[in-house]
């Protein structure tokens, strides 16, 4: 008898392989495989499997235990509470995973503030808001890190948005973002002051420099998190992100290396209140890299066209999916957008069909938007799309499929033929807005 793997559920994460005390499990072609000769049925793998793909069979061979163990053969169900023995095991197991956060060596939550081309990425402040919550649960300091050139005004803002302490490296080589000097600056600060958690926006810059920093520090990095939390027992950072193209959510831990690092999607965390006049400790360090050592130069910055910049800041978005059927039908939704002064967006399917450019794409591989109103026309609502827009304040969806996923997130779902509904909507909005503008 041995542990049974449900191969349809196994995600090949390998948690069980690491856990197994007798090395009876291995990953073969991406799924967990048991060596029955080695398996001692300790059950430890069952408790760590995030997908509930493992189960212990009833010990039919041991008649004395037959009745008592009958329940063990049951399908493992995430909704049911874990058996007591398993809960106890999980506790003792959690205690093993050292070092835990809150220790005296690695301490503090750091937010890396993104400042480039004279612009502070708003996600930096969103993260100070989220970082405050994490630091309060752990009981540690919340610090901001500012690397750049002539950043005094950024320091003031970081305090206003809630940093207790600000680490600063202010140097001409940091004027334009470049991976080498930025990674060097951040890595140097982390090595010296040893924060337990560092966060940065999942922007083009955050997703460029954080992997470089994590590689130098040989620690774990979780990209594009949408939910962060602290495990109440271990104080580990729970980093939740969409996985498998957004089809599932995965909570990732970095158990034994420090710091724990995440990039976080912009516009997912709430913007904290700005309090003028707050201040705190400023720690200044020198940049150790000189211009001669840097092998990259920024020659030119070309600001993007109005539409692509505007999309993630738009108040009202009209988005179109493959339900529009053809590029020649696009004027229908353009008119609707015009009637509201809205910005036009689309799904990945529309981009891949070549009907609109990638600049307009909302979703997992496009832009995350959080407008006040999101009007989804002919969008079925694949999860990859939903992750990019479901935090919009109001969602209105038009679709002819009552089972469309978009209806699950819509405040108002209009079931009907978009070719009938959209012109009517345009006409109604025009009528209402003939003496004014919408926002």
């Amino acid at each position, binding site marked *: 008898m041995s542990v049974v793997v449900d191969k*349809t559920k196994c995600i*090949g994460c390998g*948690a069980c*392989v*690491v856990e197994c005390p007798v090395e009876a499990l*291995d*990953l*073969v*072609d*991406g799924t967990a495989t048991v060596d029955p000769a080695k398996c001692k049925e300790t059950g430890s793998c069952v408790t760590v499997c995030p997908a509930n793909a493992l189960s212990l069979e009833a010990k039919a061979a041991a008649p004395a235990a037959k009745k008592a163990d009958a329940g063990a053969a049951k399908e493992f169900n995430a909704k049911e509470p874990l058996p007591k023995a398993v809960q106890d095991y999980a506790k003792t197991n959690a205690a093993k995973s050292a070092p835990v956060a809150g220790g005296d060596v690695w301490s503090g939550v750091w937010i890396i503030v*993104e400042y*480039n081309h004279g*612009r502070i990425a708003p996600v930096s402040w969103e993260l100070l808001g989220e970082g405050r919550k994490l630091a309060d649960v752990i009981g540690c300091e919340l610090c901001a890190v500012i690397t750049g050139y002539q950043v005094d005004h950024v320091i003031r803002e970081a305090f206003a948005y809630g940093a207790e302490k600000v680490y600063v490296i202010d140097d001409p080589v940091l004027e334009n*973002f470049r*991976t*080498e000097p930025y990674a060097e600056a951040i890595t140097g600060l982390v090595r010296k002051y040893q924060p337990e958690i560092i966060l940065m926006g999942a922007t*083009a*810059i955050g*997703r*460029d420099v954080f*992997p470089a920093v*994590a*590689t130098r520090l040989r620690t*774990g990095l*979780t*990209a*594009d998190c949408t939910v962060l939390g602290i495990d109440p027992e271990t104080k580990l950072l729970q980093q939740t992100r969409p*996985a*498998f*193209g957004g*089809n*599932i959510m995965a*909570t990732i831990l*970095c158990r*034994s290396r420090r710091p724990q690092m995440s990039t976080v999607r912009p516009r997912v965390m709430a913007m904290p209140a700005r309090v003028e006049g707050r201040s705190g400790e400023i720690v200044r360090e020198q940049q150790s890299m000189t211009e001669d050592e840097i*092998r*990259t*130069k920024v*020659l030119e*910055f*070309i600001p*993007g066209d109005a539409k692509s910049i505007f999309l993630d800041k738009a108040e009202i978005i009209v988005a179109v999916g493959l339900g529009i059927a053809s590029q020649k039908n696009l004027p229908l939704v353009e008119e609707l957008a015009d009637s509201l002064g809205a910005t036009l967006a689309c799904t990945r399917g529309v981009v891949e069909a070549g009907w609109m450019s*990638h600049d307009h794409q909302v979703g*997992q*591989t496009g832009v995350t938007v959080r407008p006040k109103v999101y009007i989804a026309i002919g969008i079925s609502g*694949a999860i990859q799309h939903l992750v990019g827009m479901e935090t919009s304040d109001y*969602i209105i969806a038009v679709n002819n499929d009552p089972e469309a996923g978009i*209806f699950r*997130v819509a405040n108002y*779902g*209009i*079931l009907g*033929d978009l070719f009938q509904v959209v012109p*009517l909507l345009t006409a*109604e*909005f025009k009528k*209402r807005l003939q*003496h*004014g503008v919408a*926002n």
Partner: protein
Amino acid sequence: MHFVVCLKQVPDTSEVRIDPNTNTLMREGVPSIINPYDAHALEEAIRLRDKMGGKVTIVSMGPPQAKEALRKAMSFGADRAILLTDRGFAGSDSLATAYILTVAIQKIHAEEPIDIVFTGKEAIDGDTAQTGPGIAQRLGFPQLTYGIRVREIDNTSVTVERKTEGGREVAKALLPALITVEKEMNELRYATLPDMMKAAVYEPEMWDAKSLPYDTAEMGLKGSPTSVSRIFPPPGRSGGERIDATTDPKGAVANLVEKVFQENIIMVHPAVKGGRA
């Protein structure tokens, strides 16, 4: 010049579905493809080789079945393909994956010095965008991420237009360098018939953990600091009100618009001269 392309075989995530009854991934019958961004990375390497002369070497980490992706890649005109495959590589996160690829690239570099390593900007099954920068750091190469155009290249440097927050940036890096590639960089070619025939019988080189000086503590599950603790279906927003517009579209739309304005979801502001403020 020597161009190395890192390429990954991935499940076509746009074909992955969730079983509504069990909330598990339905992965059966999901086709395997070359990661789309990697295909553009390969295309750029081949174009530059054709322009500058030299060689394109593909390196991939994956199960033995990934040979198919490498054959397909060869059909576009690459010169050599290497598959890193070993059970000890399984379960690697992005840190360990970058390590495994780097050790192989170092060997390739020692045989024939590399000018540029190309990777896709990210893989569609992980979306982390971490492996490319991880390789650049370990190799000690400068990195230019989110490349959309190679503007200039000579024997000592490359100038790349790259996407960044709020616009595009033109950046120049000394060679050897690593570039991660967006789809905008080029249009993919179709393989020619002779190249397809040649690729069909091509046997990619297979390197396992023993063929290179790997430290087993840095690869696979042991070498991966991150681990999945839980997976769950994405949270659904509770659906709101449904308005049926199948029988009376006009009435339904009027009803919706009335609500939208009543609840101040959309508000009317006096028009500002010259249009929207």
